[in-house]
């Protein structure tokens, strides 16, 4: 199937296409088992897709506008909601941008805790992506397995933060809770379990002849084209472009860790599946290193600790818990701008903040990976068969609420 030639993408008017004889317009979604929260307009000629037009915005809730209307701290939950599968990385990206504005840096222990939670979140996100890929290809077993394997990690995060998905764990200057005592052992058990399961996936899913027949050679995006279209994350690396923000522009304490950036040169749907599994393996290794090397110390910025009330200080010393101080709710960074780039589960999350010296951000800009992966619909899908549409869709791990967030 390597001889698929991607039809050149042209912006001919839609009416012309629908008038053409033999071309059928299909509206896939939003109430469709293979669409998620978006509408994909697909024009097919025979069984071949001629043109695809993603119609997004069904989950557009105005995250940017709402964040400009809220206090800096109150924007954290709003930032988390669109990336509900991968909340920690979104949270982390926003906080890094905010800390740059404020001109402070979290202590090392807090940074390590951030990395640990971010990597757990990446594992959760990748497993969710594999699950969605499975159900789009018609295999409910992989959907169920991947969802089941998320649960141990959700449990661990729940023990740490008290919520299943929306943790709001990272705050300006540090994190809200210190790790519980037996956190390391519990995480190790979960990691061992996951390692065993990954080999199970390879047996039943990755080496399944039907999966290979459907995914290999489908939805090829070359490295050069991927660069031009600006796609991000595992999808980009599956096309052979070695760019991981954790490596090329390290943030937090990622420069302390020794890990690989897996790449595949095929750039097809199958490579995009494999790369997620490889990244899970890398995340496991990062988590082990982090657990081994985590330093002792404070989990909140020194200056903020000093300015805590005695009651809060006592709570912090006893339970390792940062109570929300009035300090955090009245943050007003100096005038200026800042940005952050974070490698989330689906790719690079970009935050851009402009402060005018008040308590609300003047301009709050977030670009999420799914939004930047939209060219997969317009550029990769045409030229394939109709049955390949859900395969490509599933392989790019597209999460509509994330793309529509603004």
């Amino acid at each position: 199937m390597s001889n698929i030639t991607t039809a050149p993408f042209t912006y001919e008017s839609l009416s012309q296409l629908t008038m053409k004889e033999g071309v059928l317009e299909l509206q896939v979604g939003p109430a469709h088992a293979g669409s998620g929260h978006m509408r994909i307009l697909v024009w097919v000629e025979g069984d071949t897709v001629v043109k695809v037009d993603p119609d997004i915005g069904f989950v557009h809730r105005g995250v940017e506008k709402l964040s400009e209307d809220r206090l800096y701290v109150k924007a954290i939950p709003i930032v988390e909601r669109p990336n509900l599968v991968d909340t920690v990385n979104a949270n982390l990206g926003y906080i890094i941008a905010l800390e740059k504005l404020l001109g402070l840096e979290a202590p090392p222990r807090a940074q390590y805790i951030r990395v640990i939670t971010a990597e757990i979140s990446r594992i959760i996100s990748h497993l969710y992506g594999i699950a969605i890929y499975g159900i789009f290809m018609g295999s409910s077993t992989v959907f169920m397995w991947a969802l089941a394997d998320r649960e141990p990690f959700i449990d661990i995060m729940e023990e740490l933060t008290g919520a299943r998905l929306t943790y709001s764990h990272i705050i300006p200057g540090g994190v809200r809770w210190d790790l519980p005592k037996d956190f390391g052992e519990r995480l190790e058990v979960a990691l061992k379990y996951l390692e065993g399961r990954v080999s199970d996936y390879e047996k039943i899913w990755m080496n399944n002849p039907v999966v290979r027949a459907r995914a290999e050679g489908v939805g090829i995006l070359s490295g050069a084209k991927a660069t031009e279209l600006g796609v991000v994350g595992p999808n980009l690396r599956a096309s052979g472009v070695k760019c991981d923000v954790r490596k090329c522009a390290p943030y937090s304490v990622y420069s302390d860790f020794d890990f690989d950036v897996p790449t595949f040169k095929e750039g097809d749907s199958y490579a995009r599946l494999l790369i997620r599994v490889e990244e899970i393996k890398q995340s496991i290794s990062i988590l082990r290193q982090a657990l081994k090397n985590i330093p002792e110390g404070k989990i909140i910025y020194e200056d903020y600790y000093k300015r805590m009330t005695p009651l809060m200080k006592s709570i912090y010393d006893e339970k390792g818990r940062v109570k929300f101080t009035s300090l955090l709710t009245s943050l007003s960074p100096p005038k200026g701008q800042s940005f952050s780039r974070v490698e989330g589960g689906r790719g690079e999350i970009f935050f851009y903040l402009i402060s005018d010296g008040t308590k609300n951000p003047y301009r709050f800009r977030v670009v999420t990976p799914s939004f930047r992966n939209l060219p997969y619909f317009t550029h990769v899908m045409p030229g394939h068969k109709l049955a390949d549409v859900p395969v490509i869709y599933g392989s790019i791990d597209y999460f509509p609420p994330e793309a529509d967030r603004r």
Partner: protein
Amino acid sequence: MLAETPHAQKLGLALGGSASVTEDQKAGLIEVRVEPKFLMDVSKKLKELGFDHCVSVTAVDYPRENYMDVIWHVSSYSNEELGNKLVSLTVRISRDEPRVGSLVGVWESSLFSERETHEMFGVEFEGHPDLRPLLLPEELLGKWPLRKDFILPKRRSDLFRKGGAQP
């Protein structure tokens, strides 16, 4: 904080006199400010230098001063040295007639972001191939929600016009 650092100087030399290049050291951001008429040339030069993809297109609204900043954030995948840099290419345009050239011809990755900026701010991207609305429903078209004069309700009671929150 805005300073003529070595990076900025190098970039300024490469871009020629049509752009003013500064580096916001605190943010780690290289700012390139251009006049609208030089936008195309500068963007092409940036692409030649290796900034091969556009991360985001956005606008910042300043209603009191009556102008808008349209910002392209660009970075690089192919050049590892440039990979950890982020360049913001800023154009200041009038708020009454927000028109600016589209850079889809230079960075194809800015296609969807420009569509979005158009519907959120009303910025007209000249030469954009496809400026249909992307995210907003029909009811909100032409209201430019992200402009600063689009004000959200401040109190919850404003929302319940009919009174009584329960069905």
